[in-house]
């Protein structure tokens, strides 16, 4: 069975707690900071981190969802178009510190698209990237995360599978699987 558990609920909680502490160290009371989760899966992690940060700091923090579908560079290079999701950025990001949050960082192309999509809402002062799982040695673009939940060495035929309670799964489980086996 080519399926390896990378994170479970217990480990995920520890990891999210650590990521929140790192964010607090750098952003203080989050006065000028907004959190943006990338559709479709990054939004669950963004919500998790956002809720925890609001509880820990006792302040209201801006949270948005960004869909990058129309900004992808693989349009017409896949068999079917990617389905669009909702974008909801109900605040101005002009001159703010933006923390982009995604579940897995692989080639870096989604993050490139996200940065393009984000510019439609203003010019942020600074943009940082937080990912739960960082697949090392697989980047196709010069993009690196600022906050990392877990580093994983992976091969091309492998895939990181994220199952979160917020998506309707029974437990939080993050797997490393071989693409052939489901």
């Amino acid at each position, binding site marked *: 069975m080519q399926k390896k558990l990378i994170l479970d609920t217990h480990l995920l909680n520890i990891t999210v707690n650590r990521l929140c502490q790192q964010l607090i160290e750098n952003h203080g009371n989050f006065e000028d900071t907004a959190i943006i989760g990338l559709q479709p899966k990054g939004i669950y992690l963004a919500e998790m981190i956002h809720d925890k940060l609001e509880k820990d700091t006792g302040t209201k923090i801006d949270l948005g969802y960004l869909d990058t579908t129309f900004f992808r560079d693989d349009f017409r290079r896949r068999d079917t178009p990617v389905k669009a999701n909702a974008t909801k950025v109900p605040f101005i990001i002009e001159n703010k510190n933006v923390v982009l949050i995604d579940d897995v960082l692989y080639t870096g192309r989604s993050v490139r698209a996200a940065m393009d999509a984000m510019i*439609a809402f203003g010019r942020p002062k600074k943009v940082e990237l937080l990912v739960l799982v960082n697949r090392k040695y697989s980047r196709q673009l010069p993009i690196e995360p600022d906050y990392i939940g877990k580093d994983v060495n992976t091969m091309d035929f492998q895939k990181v599978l994220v199952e979160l309670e917020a998506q309707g799964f029974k437990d939080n489980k993050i797997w490393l699987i071989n693409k052939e086996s489901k």
Partner: protein
Amino acid sequence: MSQLSQKHLLGIKDITREDIELIFETARSFKEVINRPIKKVPSLRDITIANVFFENSTRTRLSFELAEKRLSADVINFSSSSSSVKKGETLLDTVNNILAMKVDMVVMRHSSPGAPHFLAKHIDANIVNAGDGTHEHPTQALLDTYSIMEKHGSVEGLKVAIIGDILHSRVAISNIFALQKLGAEVMVCGPNTLLPKYIGSLGVKVELDVRKALQWCDVANVLRIQLERQQIKYFPSLREYSLYYGVNKRMLDELDKEITIMHPGPINRGVELNSDVADSEHSIILEQVQNGVAVRMAVLYLLAGGKA
């Protein structure tokens, strides 16, 4: 599914309910995009679209052009009045010449029913029908039903009356197909001379009294009297038509409910629709125009999406 079942959008008759729902879902995302400070996305960056209009149009053509530009496509425009069609070139030759310049999609309006179907058989590019004679006008029906859905939450179970010149209307035919596919009840209303003979076979109710139609429906889609297509007299005078079939504020006030008024434009004010209705809070005519851009963006995006 994230792909349409068809390579072209020739008519609503050819597509499925799932296709319509996918177009609506995508249009919702594009509506959010066109209300942003920066309204443009780079999706169709390397795609060239030819707008080929053999028949006059303001709204549809502007709407398509805007949709194409908001998707970052390259756009070329062609209208028959200023072209070699006047010198006797055939439709297929004209379009093949345009395609020889490496065009990926063709948006076409033509006065002959079936013209886009004919093209689809002979050329490779994706074709979007922007109205073919008295046959179909699919994007108009999509934006009409999208606007109804936005206003009422769902189209399923709603009663929609289409009032006016049904005989010459491609908007009516496409709307009937779209509404029925989405589960609405449809009624057509107009003078006998402006109802096509076969209309009963489409499974719609037929009503001759406009007051009864308004009382029955939740949404009234009032169509334009297409004088340019009427070679013979179908009614004695415009004044008489407006007296019997024109929708005005007094008629709406007499109803015991509120109904939504739509019109695909251009309006003959004072003929099929009075200004006191067209500009009232019942009317969603300008929402239809705004949704037109989002719906057309969705159609172009989804058709272009397959592997190049």
